[in-house]
């Protein structure tokens, strides 16, 4: 169109753009949680890890001027929080869900406390790769400005899928998750496997947080996550502990987040609260359709405290 608007095409384009822009934190947190849960432990604290990751990435990027150093710092922070979770959970008779909730509050609280001086300054952001170079339409170009972290996440999903099936450490994680007795009989320390799996999970969740503060929406503030970490943890169950399904589920949640604003922008103004709730309605619907009283969830690791 002559005036530079693309009319109703905005909606599919916004959903596509949203899938790319908004999904990355979901993707990293859910892949991380997938590894942790496959080893037989739930880390609900990833919401706190995500927020801590976002804060530390922003802080390091601001202080050093290098956003990539910020991403790395976010990962390390996440791994440390993961180690804390795993460490506490390796004590006898500790409930991993309760520890997770405690760490969620601890992580967000600590991030708000340490992040106070970071709200005002502007830190250098991660660069974007322009995949829309072939198009003359500015809207398409904007939707296809992709961050490297998104690409890494997309690549990581099939790699994890493959690794769980065919590599030695993938087998070990699954053994620890399916039967800790079997893992012990093989001469492996279940606690050590879970410690590593939780640390890797935390590392990825931290990186997911760095995407929030360093790319999109792209600044540190206290409402930044608004529950995305906890949504991503739920998403793992939704995706049946399958990294490839985690990828699709993250993309769907990202796209759905863009649906509400996009529909309002083309004039569908009634019921925007309902559209904003779209991802959650989707989750509920799929959960209800696929659940069965006769068996546990397919793909659920047998050692997980919610299925045991």
């Amino acid at each position, binding site marked *: 169109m002559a*005036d*530079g*608007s*693309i009319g109703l095409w*905005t909606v599919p*384009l*916004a959903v596509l*753009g*949203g899938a790319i*822009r*908004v999904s990355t934190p979901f993707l990293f947190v859910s892949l991380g949680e997938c590894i942790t849960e496959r080893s037989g432990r739930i880390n609900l604290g990833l919401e706190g890890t995500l927020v801590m990751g976002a804060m530390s990435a922003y802080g390091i990027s601001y202080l050093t001027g290098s956003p990539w150093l910020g991403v790395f710092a976010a990962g390390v922070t996440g791994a440390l929080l993961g180690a804390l979770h795993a460490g506490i959970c390796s004590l006898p008779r500790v409930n991993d869900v309760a520890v997770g909730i405690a760490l969620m509050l601890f992580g967000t609280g600590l991030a*708000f406390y340490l992040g*106070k*001086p970071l*709200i*005002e300054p*502007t830190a250098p952001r991660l660069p974007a790769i322009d995949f829309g170079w072939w198009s003359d339409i500015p*809207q398409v170009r*904007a*939707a296809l400005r992709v961050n490297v972290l998104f690409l890494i996440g997309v690549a990581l999903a099939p790699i994890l899928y493959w690794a769980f099936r065919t590599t030695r450490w993938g087998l070990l994680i699954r053994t620890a998750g399916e039967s800790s007795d079997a893992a012990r009989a093989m001469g492996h320390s279940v606690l050590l496997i879970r410690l590593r799996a939780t640390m890797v999970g935390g590392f990825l969740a931290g990186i997911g947080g760095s995407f929030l503060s360093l790319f*999109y*929406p*792209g*600044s540190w*503030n*206290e*409402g*930044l996550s*608004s529950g*995305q970490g906890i949504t991503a943890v739920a998403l793992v169950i939704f995706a049946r502990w399958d990294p490839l399904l985690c990828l699709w589920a993250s993309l769907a949640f990202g796209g759905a*987040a*863009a649906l*509400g*604003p*996009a529909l*309002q*922008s*083309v*004039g569908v*103004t*009634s019921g*925007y*609260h309902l559209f*904003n709730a779209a991802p959650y309605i989707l989750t509920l619907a799929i959960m209800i359709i696929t659940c069965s009283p006769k068996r546990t969830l397919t793909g659920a690791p047998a050692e997980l405290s919610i299925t045991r």
Partner: protein
Amino acid sequence: MDFGRISRRQVLQGGAALTLGAATGMRPAFAAETTIGFIYVGSRDDYGYNQAHAQGAAALKKIPGLKVVEEEKVPETDAVEKTIESMINLDGATLLFPTSFGYYNPHMVKMAAKYPKLHFEHCGGLWTDKDPKNAGSYFGYIDEAQYISGIIAGYTSKSGKLGFVAAKPIPQVLRNINAFALGARLANPKATTQVIFTGDWSMPVKEAEATNSLIDQGVDVLTCHVDGPKTMVENAARRGAFVCGYHTNQSPLAPKAYLTGAEWNWEALYPKFVKMIAAGESIPNFYRGGLKEEIVKTSPYGEVVSAEARKHADDVKAKFLSAEGYAIFKGGLVDNKGKTVIAAGTDRGQKDPELEKMDYLVEGVIGATS
């Protein structure tokens, strides 16, 4: 119950009462350290609502003899009562500014009744005759500044499409949207203002998505009414759109894209309040005003604002500042569904209480209130 804290508090209460007496005795000058307490719902450097109040507090800090105590991130629950109690009893605060809307009822009202000698000033305009006389409520007609922003936006926009990222469809927000849209139509009678509601005061991801969708629709000047405009300003500037700010001056975030903005002017109002108290005058319980009363102001114009736009905006601003004032919402006003909302011949001036019940979007706004 924490007994240790209670006893410590009681001990200090005596001390606080002494200083309090001293402070009241020394009127009108506040030589003996008058303490003023500020309570914010969020972080005070959020480039938004709280920062605007913190700037007001900072202006008070410069006045000799005044001590300012501040607490951030106090939720709109019993927590604010505890904060008020500790500011009074531990710090000896005699004037309190609980700044967030939800602090008023029942929390601040309860505290004002409990401490009838102290002054409480709340931002939001909620005071009624039934409330304690030492409680006050002030608010600014920031839609005047939004109207000026609208004029500048109308001149600057090439597509004639403006965008408004709003939190919730409540009267104060709708009034800002309408004022912005009407201002834009002064500059460009064909201008439209598209509004997107995010659903809450602080939703950074939704705000960023709303900003992107508006720009995808061809919008090239945006403004907002959310708690922290930083997300909208930064994301719009990255896409090459222009922005008008809100709450405070966001031009440091996007110096090239920033046109102007509607700002609170608490740094002018709060020292006035303090001087009134020091002089023994009582602050009206219901204190309001706009540009003329220096409760709101506009940000300095950005580089790209044309001379024509500046002149038109300055002319309208001069009318707001004049003795007879200026009505934004004039008779014959039609909403965006074609219904006449203000009958021809009745101008609704700023202080008209009808405007505080606003539940419509005017002609030229694309969007709906529900």
